[in-house]
């Protein structure tokens, strides 16, 4: 059986960053397994710009951002298996994958980094009533058709969901000659970046209907219309507010779900809130030697943060692989829980061991609603160590706090760390 120090599942931005940092100075063998015929992941179809402002201080398109990492990965001597799907991951880190040239291949990994990204929530998961015609797409599938295949999913479009993918596709479809009638959003606020409301909706006069949803799809063979209704505070359609929108296409941008089928099969514990693996400060999952980063860990908004997070995962995966190669047994860490409270929906990581932390640890989190004029506070047990005022916090924008190892080590008998929002 082939052996690699680090095997990375997924060759998108997370996988590439993790592979690069795992490779280090070139002492470790690193393999990236990618199911597409090329690297880049979802960035290949994200042809719009806005990527890389933090990483490169440049505004790049998705493919350009991906190419930077791809070039570095190839130059660094990272091995690739493209057009290959990982079928199984065992808890002793045997990766089983399949492709057309090699058939079924098993690889023993010193450490594994999960970087499989996420998938889109389909219409079926929302139970939108009506017929099941052609013309209902998730926004990502439509994006692939337009940007990779050069094919138009439709001409008269209604979009459900104002997350970034929905907003980006509103602009994309319009620029290719379609008419987007509206973007309906279930919540009373948009899930996407404010800049996208401006450059994708306002620029084209596309109305954003907050607190609205699609209640019915018409058309047996192809979409003929959708009905859009107001939604009450209970989240349910308000009777008699339905408006019929004749159209031939419904695009759905109604949620991204980390793709953790493989993780689950490997026995990795998943968080019901992030739907990704529960991880410690090293981004190691509940199965030792298996690390996770990027959208498979929790859904991100900015690829720059994906790259940062993945770099950390790759470093730790590499360090773990070194221990394995030296015949040492990695020590079990002392897990101190990180709690998300009072408006903070989750944190990644969910636990940490201060002795294994780097000097500084980025703790990423999201809030569960729209909050104005709140303090982001960090508590070590009862002691508040951070208290920063923020004028606005929204679910659609990932936030972070930074923890310092020295500060944590100095706190005697630390049992719990809390990240919460406070009014004063």
């Amino acid at each position, binding site marked *: 059986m082939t052996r690699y120090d680090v095997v990375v599942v997924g060759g998108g931005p997370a996988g590439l960053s993790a592979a690069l940092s795992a490779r280090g100075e070139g002492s470790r063998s690193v393999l990236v397994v990618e199911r597409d015929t090329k690297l880049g992941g979802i960035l290949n179809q994200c042809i719009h710009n806005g990527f890389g402002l933090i990483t490169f201080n440049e505004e790049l398109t998705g493919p350009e951002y991906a190419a930077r990492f791809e070039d570095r990965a190839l130059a660094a001597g990272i091995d690739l298996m493209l057009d290959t799907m990982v079928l199984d991951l065992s808890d002793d880190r045997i990766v089983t994958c399949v492709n057309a040239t090699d058939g079924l291949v098993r690889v023993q990994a010193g450490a594994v980094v999960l970087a499989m990204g996420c*998938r889109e929530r389909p219409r079926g998961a929302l*139970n939108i009533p009506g017929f099941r015609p052609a013309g209902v797409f998730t926004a990502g599938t439509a994006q692939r058709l337009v940007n990779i295949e050069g094919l138009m999913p439709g001409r008269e479009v209604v979009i459900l969901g104002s997350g970034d993918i929905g907003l980006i596709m509103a602009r994309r479809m319009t620029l290719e000659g379609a008419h987007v009638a509206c973007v309906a959003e279930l919540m009373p606020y948009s899930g996407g970046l404010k800049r996208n409301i401006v450059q994708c909706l306002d620029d084209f006069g596309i109305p954003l209907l907050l607190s609205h949803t699609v209640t019915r799809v018409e058309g047996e063979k*192809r979409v003929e219309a959708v009905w859009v209704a107001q939604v009450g505070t209970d989240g349910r359609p308000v009777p008699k507010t339905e408006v019929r929108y004749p159209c031939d296409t419904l695009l759905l941008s109604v949620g991204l779900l980390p793709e953790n089928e493989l993780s689950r099969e490997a026995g990795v514990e998943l968080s019901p809130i992030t739907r990704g693996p529960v991880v410690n400060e090293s981004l190691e999952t509940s199965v030792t030697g298996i690390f996770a980063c990027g959208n498979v860990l929790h859904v991100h908004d900015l690829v720059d943060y994906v790259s940062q997070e993945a770099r950390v995962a790759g470093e730790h995966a590499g360090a773990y692989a070194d221990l394995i190669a030296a015949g040492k047994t990695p020590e079990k860490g002392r897990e101190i829980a990180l709690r998300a409270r009072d408006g903070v929906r989750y944190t990644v990581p969910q636990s940490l061991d201060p002795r294994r932390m780097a000097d500084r640890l980025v703790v990423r989190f999201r809030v569960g609603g729209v909050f104005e004029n709140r303090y982001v506070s960090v508590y070590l047990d009862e002691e508040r160590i951070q208290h920063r005022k923020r004028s606005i916090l929204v679910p659609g924008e990932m936030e972070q706090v930074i923890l310092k190892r020295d500060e944590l080590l100095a706190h005697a008998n630390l049992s719990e760390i809390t990240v919460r929002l406070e009014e004063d």
Partner: protein
Amino acid sequence: MQNSDYDVVIVGAGVSGCATARELSRLEARVLVIEREEDVCCGTSKANSAIVHAGYDARTGSLMAKLNVEGSRLMPALCESLGVDFMRIGSLVVCTSEEMLPGLEELRQRGANNGVEGLEVVDRPRLLELEPAVSHAALGALWAPTAGIVNPFQLNVAFAEDASVNGVDFRFNSRVSGLSRDDDGCWHVSCSTGNVTCRVVVNAAGVHADELHNLVSTDKLVITPRRGQYYVLDTTAGAHVRHTVFSQPTVLGKGVLITPTTAGNLLVGPNAEDITDKEGTDTTAEGLAEVAEKSSVAVRDVPLREVITSFSGLRAHQPGHDFVIGEVEGAPGFVDCAAIESPGLSACPAIGRMVAGIVRDILALAPKPVVTPWRSEFVSLERATTEEWAALVEKNPAYGRVICRCRKVSEAQIVDAIHAPLGARSLDAVKRRTEACMGRCQAGFCTPKIMEILAREVEGMDMSDVTKAGPGSGIVVGTNKDGLAGDGR
């Protein structure tokens, strides 16, 4: 005898029509199946509970009862020989109200009278052993070990492929608009893709069977579309119950069933609503809500939030509530195979035999000396061991390229589905033959890839020609920028 284009024309390529076609393909006859949709299995046959009922439910002495029990007996061996997924998992009719308990015994008795074997009324302790997930209100049940589940798409396709390989012609996208019989006793079938003459017409037209029947007979048949809506739950919920669980009907009406499917999903539903629109295969908020509410009666904690899709199917219901099978009086050579509502799927092997028998007798058909044996190769990589998969890739590298990642369907299977007899020409046709598109992402990932494969493998088909389900359901409407106005936007 006069020269007609065909000996037999079967209208409808659902399980009834295709089972009949397969049986007739063993006889010396020229047979044509005319189907209005683009593929087999596009009507009720693709939108049902996928259950092979044991046969206790139908009224004793009815055709339904007889053919259900016979079909249920034939199904395991038939599926084995055709390569169709069938699992004899048994069923439970769960009683949740004290005064309905005697009804279980009545049902058992009726089943015994119908010829069903192994029926047993079980009390709550035994019920819990059989099915730990039953609700707290469950008092007892009728246990039917001979009941099973089948893959209805595979069954329908396998019947059709077998029939085709043995000489039956099929025409799709073809509507029958008229029927008349000339003085020589020859039937003239007016069809949108060209008129056809034949000696016998088999009416297997599903919810439209009354329309066809009433063209030839003054003794009117009335078919009411009875809509049933379902939830399909992810395979993560597939083991929630071990058997098919029915709710015994109470004064409040019929309940819904919860059942695993052969592919490992969980099916919840259906309700029953008589509608007037024969194209009414849409789901409704009210219907789905009704199914959700009823789902908790017999089974605990049904994980409805793991829903991946919902659908509705129309049962061809007629007031007498029995199958209508036979040569129509006053219309010699016109054979009804109508009102095939539940247990139609369970009965279809027997229905096929019965209808073919009627046709054989009308035309005095002799058996063919040689029949080409047929087995549809429905490979499942989801259930294959790694060694089995490795061997498949050795044989055909395209097994190593996974197209539908949710159900692990490979390029080889999709290509095979396209090149099989009556091969797939649309996304839904590929779906029926391979399980692709039926996973948790509901074709989000595989749609562009399957489009590519169809365009590559089907002569004269570009990606922009690919449809979801035949004419009018194109996936894409054109190419980029082709809709941009020249000026003045």
